[in-house]
């Protein structure tokens, strides 16, 4: 490949500029994180990231992100199904609104959900009467993350359902499958990789999410403190290497999640 001459001009200048810009803005700063975390040495690094408060924060972040992504799976599938298969008044508006969690600044989502679900909030008050506390609990964090993650699932599933061969469903029907059989045997296996991909993206995003969660979480160390907030706390205590260590674990965690979901999805698609 390298020896081939390029027909179009600008190969050197555009690849060169891209690499320089990417290095300055993204790669060198990220390298600084790796370097900083490695100056700690293995023993101290381990001590920092395995401290009870850190472990608790990782559990909150990874646990709520997974719970939220799993909740998003059926809701996202249902919404994507309704949007691709049925036409009803206001469908265009609903479709456009799906991206609201992407478009709305996270601080706005954060204070809005917190106030809505607080003990005296519009939804929080009736729920409190049922004995359910949302804001400042695990449930609240998961709710905020489910809000943030929903578009990932819907937008992953929608194109697949859209392109799904109607013939396949019709064939199943003609061959005598009833509606449930068609759903369970034909449609769900067909969209499963896309759902998984959306869940993976929502999960990974949830792990590092800050703005929409930090208000509703209540930030009680050991209980509702998320890992990104622990990073901020360490920074405020001028403990930059501690912050870097927590950040490394969080970063590797999101990469592993993204990579694993990607792998499973590819395997499933190849099998199909």
């Amino acid at each position, binding site marked *: 490949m390298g020896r081939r001459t390029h027909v*179009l001009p600008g190969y050197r200048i555009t690849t060169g*500029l891209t690499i320089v810009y990417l290095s300055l803005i993204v790669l060198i700063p990220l390298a600084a994180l790796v370097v900083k975390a490695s100056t700690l040495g293995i023993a101290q690094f381990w001590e920092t990231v395995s401290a009870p408060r850190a472990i608790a924060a990782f559990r909150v972040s990874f646990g709520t992100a997974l719970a939220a992504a799993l909740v998003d799976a059926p809701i996202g599938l249902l919404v994507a199904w309704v949007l691709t298969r*049925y036409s009803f008044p206001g469908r265009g508006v609903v479709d456009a609104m799906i991206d609201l969690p992407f478009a709305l*600044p996270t601080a706005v989502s954060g204070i809005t959900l917190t106030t809505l679900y607080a003990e005296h909030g519009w939804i929080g008050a009736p729920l409190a009467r049922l004995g359910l506390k949302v804001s400042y609990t695990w449930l609240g964090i998961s709710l905020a993350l489910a809000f943030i993650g*929903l578009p990932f699932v819907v937008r992953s599933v929608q194109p697949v359902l859209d392109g799904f061969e109607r013939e396949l469903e019709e064939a199943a029907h003609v061959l005598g499958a009833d509606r449930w059989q068609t759903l369970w045997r034909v449609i769900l296996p067909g969209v499963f990789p896309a759902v998984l991909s959306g869940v993976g993206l929502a999960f990974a995003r949830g792990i590092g999410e800050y703005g929409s969660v930090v208000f509703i979480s209540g930030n009680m160390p050991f209980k509702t403190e998320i890992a990104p907030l622990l*990073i901020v706390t360490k920074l405020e205590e001028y403990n930059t290497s501690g912050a870097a260590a927590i950040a490394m674990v969080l970063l590797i965690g999101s990469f592993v999640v993204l990579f694993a979901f990607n792998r499973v999805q590819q395997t499933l698609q190849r099998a199909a």
Partner: protein
Amino acid sequence: MRRILIAAAIVLLAFLLFLPLVFVFAQALRDGWHTYVAAVTEPDTRSAIRLTLTIAAIVVPLNVAFGIVAAWALTKFEFRGKASLTTMIDLPFAVSPVIAGLIFVLLFGNSGVFGAWLKAHDIKILFAVPGMVLATLFITFPFVVRELLPIMNAEGTEAEEAAVLLGASGWQTFWRVTLPSVKWGVLYGTLLCAARAIGEFGAVSVVSGHIRGVTTTVPLHVEILYNDYQMSAAFAVSSLLTIIALVTLVAEHLLQGRIR
């Protein structure tokens, strides 16, 4: 069955998406129109708006320009390492906003890599506008490239090659052949980039130092008001951001039709 599913989806979305949206405006106007106007025009809000727009005005053109350059490199040529380069462009999407802020603290903070040098030369990057610009550049870099890659890949290179063979220069080819065919994609990416640059919270919060009236962007101002228990003011300022988000959504929806 059909009706039940539609109803279920709409009820779920109503609680999850529509209600929060209505709530922002309800809270913003809770204490009346005068309080609302006062909150969005007070000096701190105005300086926050100015700072947010300044940051966006620097970040968006840079990331649009480099986004186009990167998309050109990645779609018009085959070279070794292209796949890894594409993956690296996506990196900011996988990085927590807090970490995006942290990495610039590690570089430019007092105990950071360039900390001593910057202090000696009296240059302020962290807890000042340059740091906030850098963090926002990091967060919003992938948007334009991501939007352009599929469009430019689908377009192929034949039109450009024909133009070059007919004697057009590289610039002419870009301006007359490539750009017209991807202009809606560029606009879409620009929109996403701008919306995120205006709304970014975590990354900017870490590098800002929270100096009221100096390094406070609109989302950070919302946080300050909220933590001060100035609820209607916090939601009034939030409503400005919400209006921007809604306009973005409508524009995205319109542009999607053009791109397809």
